[in-house]
C-alpha cells in the first residue's frame, strides 16, 4: 500500500486509540493529519501532482494551505455526490486541531468523537470516489 495512504489510515487508528484511552484532546491532531496525508496521496496518485512537485511547490510556504487550496476544489468538482462536504470536513478537522493543539481550552469528548467520525467520512468518501475508481 502506498506510504501516504497507509500513514493516513494509521492516523485514524491512532486517534481512535487516544479517544478510547482517556486522551481525547490529543486525538484531534492525528484525526486532522489523516485527511492532510490522504490529500497528499490523492494529489500524487489521482491529480498528477507528484510528491516531488508537492515538495517544490510548497518549499518555504504553508504546505497545508497550499495543497488543500489545490486539492479540495478539484475534489468537490469531480465528486458531485460529496461535493462541498470535502471542504467542510477538512476545515472542521483543521479548526479542531488548532483548538486542541494550541489553545488552553477543554473540548467535550463527544465533540472529539464527532471529529473522528468526520475524519473517517473524509477517508471513506475519498476511497470510494477516487482511490477505488482508480484501481
Amino acid at each position, binding site marked *: 500500500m502506498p506510504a501516504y495512504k497507509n500513514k493516513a489510515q494509521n492516523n485514524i487508528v491512532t486517534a481512535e486509540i487516544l479517544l478510547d484511552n482517556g486522551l481525547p484532546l490529543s486525538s484531534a491532531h492525528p484525526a486532522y493529519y489523516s485527511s492532510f496525508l490522504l490529500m497528499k496521496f490523492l494529489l500524487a496518485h489521482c491529480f498528477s501532482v507528484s510528491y516531488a512537485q508537492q515538495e517544490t511547490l510548497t518549499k518555504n510556504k*504553508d504546505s497545508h494551505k497550499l495543497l488543500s*487550496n489545490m486539492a479540495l*476544489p478539484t475534489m468537490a468538482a469531480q465528486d458531485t455526490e460529496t461535493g*462541498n462536504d470535502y471542504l467542510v470536513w477538512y476545515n*472542521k478537522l483543521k479548526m479542531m486541531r488548532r483548538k486542541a493543539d494550541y489553545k488552553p481550552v477543554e473540548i467535550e469528548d463527544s465533540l472529539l468523537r464527532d471529529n473522528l467520525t468526520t475524519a473517517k467520512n473524509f477517508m471513506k468518501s475519498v476511497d470510494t470516489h477516487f482511490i477505488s475508481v482508480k484501481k
Partner: protein
Amino acid sequence: MMKETDFLINALNEWCKQFEGIHVRYAYDAATEYHIVEVDPESIRRGNIEYEEAEMALWTQFMEAFPEADLLISEPSRVNDMSNCLFDSSNKSLGQSEWERFYFDYDVLAQIEINLTKKCAHSQTNEYKNVNEYALAA
C-alpha cells in the same frame, strides 16, 4: 482581516437576498484564525442545488482572493465559536415551516371565529327570548 470580512459580508448579503428562508451567521474566531459561516436550514444547505453552487463559488473566490486565510462554511454546530459574531441575517420570506405555522394559526383563528359566531347567535337568541318574556309580562 477587514478585507476578508467585507468580502464575506457582501457575499452573505447576496445569499440572504437570493435564497428564500435562509439564515446565515458569520463570526471570526481569533483563537483558531477561522472565518466561520453557519448556514441553515439543512434543506437549503444540502438540498438546494443553486445554494450549493453558490457555496462552492464562495469557497473558490475566497481562496483565490485570500489564499492565506481559513474559511469554514458549515451547519450550525457547538464546535464553532460564534461569540465574535459579525453578521447575522435571514431571508424573511416564509419558508416551509413558517407556512405550516401560518396554516396552523389560520385554523385556530377559524375555530375561534366559529365559536364566537355560535356564542353570538346564542346570546342573540337569549336576548330575543328575554325581550319576548318581558313583552308577555307587560
